[in-house]
């Protein structure tokens, strides 16, 4: 077995491979030099070893490319494979998220895109179709772009029910489908906003990341644009869990791969200064569902560090003990082989990191 660490940057993708001790990683890349890679995913279902990449050329547009040989060769769909259909009046700007569905739908891959929409592939990422149920939602016309644009950046397929999917939109909030994407309901009760007169609207929240807990299907963790939250009822309602963090602003949120009470976040100082607080890099971990959080900074720079971790810049490899990885806008990638207790630098001078994903290769 080995670990595949995938890093998307503003100037290409880098694929690292290392042993399961997660001490040393060998890079390949840049793949797609000069293109922005906001979305990467690994699909190990149904015997595949497929890496998916959402690539964005500043000249020639965005497509999803696949590699079945760990980046030696990539598909290059000539006609584009994520296209808004005629009549929508929309054109693809960027692929923000690629998310394989669960094992019960081994050929399904979701793509969250800008302008905010969900696409679905049933051929493992070769071609995608717009999910009309969400596109036609009456709320959509009232969603507002955040600083990154009006994007659907998070797709969470329920590991327990292939028909249940959560998505998050900035700024639209969380929506859930219980029928495979045919219909969607806003699920933002309890999540506050700071940029509208009503602090608790039905929708419009600037949700930054949502992660589903392992082993407890109705528990979700959220990093909001101001606020850390947990839901224990499948996002019907959310409770504030920003207990003991230096800031409740941040982008990333990772659920532990086995313990439903453990989650990780990377607080940033504020919306107006999106760097780690006090210039000290720390990942924060809760082991009690958010009742308390502890800083984990061993091996991370503890002074003069103006690091920013974006919403998809933090990932786990799913192993026990959990391997954790995060990348920064200043081009560092850090890894922990022991659930965050200690960290080491994997790469130090990459272009700004947009996304980090990890997988175990068997």
């Amino acid at each position: 077995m080995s670990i595949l660490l995938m890093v998307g940057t503003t100037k290409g993708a880098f694929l690292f491979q290392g042993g399961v001790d997660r001490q040393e990683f060998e890079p390949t890349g840049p793949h797609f030099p000069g293109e922005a890679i906001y979305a990467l995913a690994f699909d190990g279902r149904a015997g595949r070893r497929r890496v998916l990449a959402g690539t964005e050329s500043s000249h020639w547009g965005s497509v999803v490319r696949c590699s079945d040989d760990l980046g030696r060769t990539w598909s290059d769909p000539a006609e584009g494979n994520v296209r808004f259909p005629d009549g929508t009046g929309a054109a693809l700007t960027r692929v923000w998220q690629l998310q394989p569905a669960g094992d019960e739908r081994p050929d399904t891959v979701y793509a969250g895109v800008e302008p905010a929409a969900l696409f679905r592939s049933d051929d493992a990422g070769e071609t995608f179709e717009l999910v009309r149920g969400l596109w036609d939602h009456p709320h959509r016309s009232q969603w507002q772009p955040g600083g990154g644009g009006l994007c659907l950046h998070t797709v969470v397929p329920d590991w327990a029910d292939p028909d249940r999917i959560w998505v998050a939109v900035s700024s639209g909030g969380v929506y859930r489908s219980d029928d495979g994407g045919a219909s969607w309901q806003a699920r933002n009760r309890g999540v506050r906003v700071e940029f509208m007169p009503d602090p608790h609207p039905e929708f419009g929240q600037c949700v930054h990341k949502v992660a589903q807990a392992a082993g407890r299907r109705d528990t979700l963790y959220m990093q909001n644009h101001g606020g850390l939250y947990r839901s224990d009822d499948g996002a019907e309602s959310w409770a504030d869990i920003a207990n003991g963090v230096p800031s409740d602003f941040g982008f990333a949120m990772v659920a532990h791969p086995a313990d439903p009470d453990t989650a990780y976040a990377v607080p940033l100082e504020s919306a107006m200064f999106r760097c780690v607080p006090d210039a000290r890099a720390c990942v924060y971990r809760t082991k009690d569902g958010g009742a308390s959080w502890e800083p984990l900074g061993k091996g991370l720079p503890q002074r003069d560090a103006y690091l920013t971790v974006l919403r998809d810049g933090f990932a786990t490899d799913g192993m026990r003990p959990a391997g954790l990885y995060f990348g920064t806008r200043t081009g560092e990638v850090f890894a922990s082989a022991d659930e965050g207790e200690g960290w080491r630098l994997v790469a130090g001078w990459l272009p700004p990191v947009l996304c980090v994903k990890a997988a175990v290769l068997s």
Partner: protein
Amino acid sequence: MATLHLPAALSAYAGGQRRVEVALPGPGTVAALLEAVGQDHPGVRQRVLDELGALRPHVNVFVNGESIRYLTGLATPVGDGDEVWVIAAISGG
């Protein structure tokens, strides 16, 4: 017949050609020319125009040396003997 000149980055989507001769049924436009090219080389059209048929923001098209942004855009006339250039604008990664 009009001639379409492609940048190196797009030649892979036109069978390796940097220069494509395009037969137009009559007096046409840049949009019609790109549609015609897209019949044989859909990857070229995809990278020059978005799904709405709009010219991508960092792609420039010139007809006989003039940028269509200062003419009539994709409605700029193209006819026999015209030289059309697709050039990547000032941008990069």
